[in-house]
């Protein structure tokens, strides 16, 4: 239990790195949401395009994070950011696309055809249907995608410490290189705890964002 003492005596460093970790993942997934949701909605209009986009996003997720960082070093070196937080944020941004795009696409596509027909029959334009009906109904599933992206990438961001991105991964990388089990264990536990806590926080947010009428149990038909 030496790692606890270590954590207590280095509490300020622990807090800084935790905040750093949250900021990096938050920034990356935030941007990913802003791009992924519109892409997910756009591809519902074209089945072939949807297949290709989802295929590409799946391929990206299969690239190991270490390899992705390696690929980005020479590319980003051109603008002087071969290592550091920039490649880390880009990697997380790319990894987040699959869960966010896929969930958005599925959610919009799965809106009850009867609701879609009712909305059309009432005389709503395509944008009005999206804004007033389809997106509000899709929010719980889109949010689930965002949650998956965040939890997945809290882990990825820990590895990004190897390219100097900062965050809680720094404890782990130093623990290994300095053969210091206290830092290693602290880093590992902190990353896991962060993932669990953030997941719950986002679940709460998801419930808050879900339209009110959808939280009550549907009447039996």
């Amino acid at each position, binding site marked *: 239990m030496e790692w606890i003492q270590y954590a207590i005596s280095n509490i300020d460093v622990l807090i800084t790195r935790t905040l750093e970790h949250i900021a990096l993942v938050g920034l990356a997934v935030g941007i990913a949401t802003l791009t992924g949701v519109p892409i997910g909605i756009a591809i519902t209009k074209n089945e072939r395009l949807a297949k290709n986009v989802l295929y590409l996003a799946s391929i990206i997720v299969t690239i190991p994070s270490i390899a992705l960082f390696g690929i980005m070093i020479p590319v980003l070196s051109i603008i002087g950011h071969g290592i550091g937080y920039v490649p880390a944020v880009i990697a997380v941004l790319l990894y987040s696309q699959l869960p966010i795009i896929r969930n958005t696409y599925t959610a919009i596509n799965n809106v009850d055809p009867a609701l879609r027909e009712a909305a059309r029959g009432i*005389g709503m334009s395509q944008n009005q249907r999206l804004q007033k009906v389809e997106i509000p109904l899709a929010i719980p599933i889109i949010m689930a995608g965002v949650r998956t992206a965040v939890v997945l990438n809290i882990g990825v961001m820990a590895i990004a410490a190897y390219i100097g991105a900062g965050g809680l991964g720094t404890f782990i990388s130093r623990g290994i290189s300095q053969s210091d089990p206290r830092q290693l264990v602290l880093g590992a536990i902190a990353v896991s705890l962060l993932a669990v806590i953030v997941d719950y926080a986002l679940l709460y947010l998801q419930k808050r964002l879900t339209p009110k*009428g959808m939280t009550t*149990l549907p009447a039996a038909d």
Partner: protein
Amino acid sequence: MIRLENLTKVFDTPKGAVVAADHINMEVPSGEICILLGPSGCGKTTTLKMINRIIRPTSGKVFIDNQDTTSLDTQTLRRNIGYVIQQIGLFPNMTIEENITIVPRLLGWNAKKYKERARELMHMIALEPDAFLKRYPSELSGGQQQRIGVARALAADPPVMLMDEPFGAIDPINRAVIQDEFIKMQKELKKTIMFVSHDIDEAIKMGDRIAIFRDGHLVQYATPDELLAAPQDNFVESFLGEDRALKRLNLIKVQDVINSEVETVTQQDSMETALSRIDRSGYQHAIIMVNEQRQPTGIIPRSVAQVSKGRCHDHAQQVPAIVNINDDLRKAVSLMLANDITWLPCVDDNNQLCGHITQRAMTHHLGARFRAQSGNTAPTAPLTEE
């Protein structure tokens, strides 16, 4: 008024072109309900959905109040047509108020006006505004949800409504209630309505006219009574069912068949008077006894009058059954069967005697239509020939 001119839909399927609706020509006069009826795949729903362009017509035109709708943009067209579907399609993320005011809001009404309209609509569909407006669709029963669905379609007071099996998913008891409410509402609103159904009884109950579809063709378009009395061909006849003559009972009111020349006795008349009136009028069974307001209070059976003396009051028997002149023949027949009698006294809403109705008169009335048809034994139906 809705008029369809050569409305046609051809679907391209992997197996080739399928003609879902073939040159449909028909007109629904203003304020009437027209039921589109037929087996599944007959083209009735396709025809309905071409009117608000949920399905795009391959060719042909739709006129609403003499205006060719081809020139209207799709959203304007749809906002002026009330649309009710079987699955109801209330938006679960919106309150009842938001659901029923959606068209007025799309049309840019101000908040005061559409909130007032929401309350008005709730009264119309017999749901308490304060109890329901702030609730969500998932908290309502199926029947309540469909009432809201109808209210939503009526919100902007469109002259025309399209209803696609609107009451099909509701249990039979609630369905009958909602149908009755809707008929009552329609009497005041006088919308021009196209209504898809596959239920012949619903069609007879709701429709001012019925259009029978088969294989994309309009086979017969007539009033329910005409349809039941004179089906165009074997298909229509079998679709209407073997008991179609019985179904007509629903459509005819007692006052159409009533014999208003009815002899009566009063409570003070003697039994001799009763017997002489029975014999004079040729009544087989009995004579009705009335009070000062001409309300039936009893009957004097012939057999009793023949053997008894004294005042009618002391010998009268209870009236076995009475029918109102506004009831339909179905109820009259039912009362006759239930009481084992062949005639019924008929009263108006003040319970005053207006006449009587006999089994013979009913059979004669119904038979008149069939006799008129029997001269023309081979009705032609060129549209349905394959």
